């Protein structure tokens, strides 16, 4: 479904009634099944955007539409992948995915197939009955992606999923994500502060300013989705994104 974020503002009350503006008239659109990256400096309000898109907090102004209808947590399905996996460590990988399926009201006789499908997609089908702590950090994060995909979300929100992994592992995980990205039906919003990651994965990149965040620049990436990370086009885009961020 198409995601539209139109003129959205958000502030938080601080002591003595002062309003701390976090988002300042943010507007962007993501096409159905598109993959958009939001890139911005640390603490600029990226997580606030995701919380708005998840419907956890309401915007102060503006509107968020999914598939042409205003965002409603009861009728829209939102998948969320957090910075950390946030798995139930006392439940197996399978049960972690089922946890989301049950909450979404998926009938139990469909669970087996659904769990297998999403785990196979992220390459973890043979780990279904393991406990999360037996898996590596990168694999745990892929379980979290599988959990989010299991509910067949309209929009998939991903919040710096590889930022806490070491660079080598993060590279492998990005490669994995690129591998199965085309099979994701959801419209993806991927938040990162890593310009190279954005240039490697996204169809569109939106650059945010420091707080209060505005969209300062947008890039449409024309290279095929199968591009490599050391593709000259990717490197050039990374440089342009960094420049827009005011680095270099």
């Amino acid at each position, binding site marked *: 479904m198409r995601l539209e974020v139109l003129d959205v503002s958000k502030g938080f009350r601080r002591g003595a009634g002062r309003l701390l503006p976090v988002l300042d008239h943010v507007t962007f659109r993501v096409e159905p099944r598109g993959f958009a990256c939001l890139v911005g400096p640390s603490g600029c309000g990226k997580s606030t955007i995701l919380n708005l898109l998840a419907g956890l907090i309401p915007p102060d102004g503006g509107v968020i539409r999914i598939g042409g209808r205003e965002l409603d947590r009861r009728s829209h399905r939102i998948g*969320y992948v*957090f910075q950390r996996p946030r798995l139930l460590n006392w439940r197996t990988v399978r049960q972690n995915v089922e946890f*989301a399926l049950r*909450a979404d009201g998926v009938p139990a006789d469909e669970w087996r197939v659904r769990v297998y499908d999403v785990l196979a997609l992220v390459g973890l089908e043979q780990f279904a009955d393991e406990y999360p*702590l*037996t898996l590596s950090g990168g694999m745990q994060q892929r379980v979290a992606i599988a*959990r989010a995909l299991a*509910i067949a979300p309209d929009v998939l929100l991903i919040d710096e999923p590889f930022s806490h992994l070491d660079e080598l592992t993060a590279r492998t995980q990005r490669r994995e994500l690129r591998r199965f990205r085309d099979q994701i039906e959801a419209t993806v919003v991927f938040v990162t502060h890593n310009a190279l990651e954005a240039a490697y994965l996204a169809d569109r990149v939106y650059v945010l300013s420091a707080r209060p965040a505005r969209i300062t620049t947008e890039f449409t990436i024309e290279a095929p989705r199968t591009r490599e990370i050391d593709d000259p086009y990717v490197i050039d885009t990374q440089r342009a994104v960094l420049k827009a961020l005011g680095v270099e």
Partner: protein
Amino acid sequence: MLVLWAMIAAFLPPTLLPGPAVVGVRLAELMGTGDFWLHLRVTVQRVVAGFVLAFVVSVAAGTLMGARRLAEGVFEPWVLVGLTIPGLCWVVLAVMWFGITEMTPVFAIFVVVLPMLTLNMWQGTKGLDRDLLEMARVFRVPWSSVMRDVVLPQLLPLCLAGVRMGFALGWKVVVLSEMFGLSSGVGSMINRSFSASSMDDVLAWTVGFTLVMFVFEYAVMLPAERRLVRWRQVVRA
């Protein structure tokens, strides 16, 4: 431990410290009479009754304190004061209030154990993983499932620790209150042996009681714990 006991006993007159062999024989005699089991059963029943009451109240109060500021403010002084009052004071008060009734040991155990267990649950509830609760909210997980899949598994190890602490404290308090004013139970038997200046009997009762604790720990607590933290042990393997 037994060797050390035997060595020290060899240097002391048997009226002060009889050796393990003597006490062992006396214990075997006691166990043969059926009296031992009768008094043991009475004592265990009192501990279980006092503990279960305290446990139920502490789970309710502790989780409420962990989840709600207001409850924390209201109950915190009670818990702190409760923790500082010596168990012996409660025993004396209980005897004066309830006399030689079953209320005395049960009440004493309840009030001594309650603050400790409440503190345990309170701190545990405050330590619940907020990130997981937020995750559950994002996935619109219903309340019942949040309890069963997110909250309870985090609180279970605490409950287990609570059972351990509660029972350990409960044993001490029950024996004290039985010594003070009851005619049945292990404590009163120790008291009777004391009046008869029979060191053999005092030690035999104490050792017998301790052995039962051991059996409880190894037969009930450790297997329960192992089952509960299976998911954690997998990592070490």
